[in-house]
């Protein structure tokens, strides 16, 4: 590669990089809102639809598992909030819905929840979250 090619490449690369960066930047207010949501709920699921009426098979499977644990959880319907629907993907660095948070920590999506439940790892995690003082239910 000669010197010209390097220069041209650099000129084109910079604006593309910055555009790309802007496109994936999470709005600070939205980020704060999400941070607050995951911090103030012991068990939180971002889902499509509601626990009573899930709008996607993966969300349905996830809430059935949470239901089976017998602990309260909070569900947020991302279909009611397009900004949140996109924002939560960037916040968690995870491209799909549902997303489950326990005690402020990202656990994963439906498949991981199922795996953990099958290995009896999920209930202890939720029990530990509720045993801790501090955050709300």
């Amino acid at each position: 590669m000669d010197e010209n090619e390097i220069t041209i490449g650099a000129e084109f690369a910079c604006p593309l990089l910055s555009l790309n960066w802007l496109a994936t930047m999470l709005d600070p207010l939205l980020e704060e809102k999400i941070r607050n949501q995951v911090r103030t709920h012991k068990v939180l699921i971002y889902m499509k639809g509601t626990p009573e009426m899930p709008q996607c098979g993966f969300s349905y499977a996830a809430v059935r598992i949470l239901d089976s644990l017998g602990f309260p959880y909070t569900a947020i319907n991302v279909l009611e909030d397009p900004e949140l629907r996109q924002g939560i993907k960037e916040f968690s660095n995870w491209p799909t819905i549902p997303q489950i948070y326990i005690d402020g920590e990202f656990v994963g999506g439906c498949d991981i929840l199922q795996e953990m439940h099958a290995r009896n790892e999920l209930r202890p995690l939720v029990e530990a979250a509720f045993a801790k003082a501090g955050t709300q239910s």
Partner: protein
Amino acid sequence: MLTPNRLRQLLAEKLQATYAYVEDESHRHAGHGGRQQGSGGHYRVQVVSPLFAGKTALQRHRLVYAALAEEMGQSIHALALQTYSPEEAPAAGIPHDWIA
């Protein structure tokens, strides 16, 4: 359209997957934002990769999503994922001598 074989190739190239079972389940999800609406298909994937050894499920799924970043939200609408290291594959009933 992303074929199961193309998906398998991507997993082999980017994750050194030694086995990748891919099932196109799009037909089961017609009418709720699936391929008909132009937002990609539903796939069920079992993948075996040496890169998964010693990693949590969360880290493994992130690796798969990163490998398929260009397809996520485009030709892939949803992905049901099961990830195994080569050591875990036999216990999961996966033929370990398969090549993707």
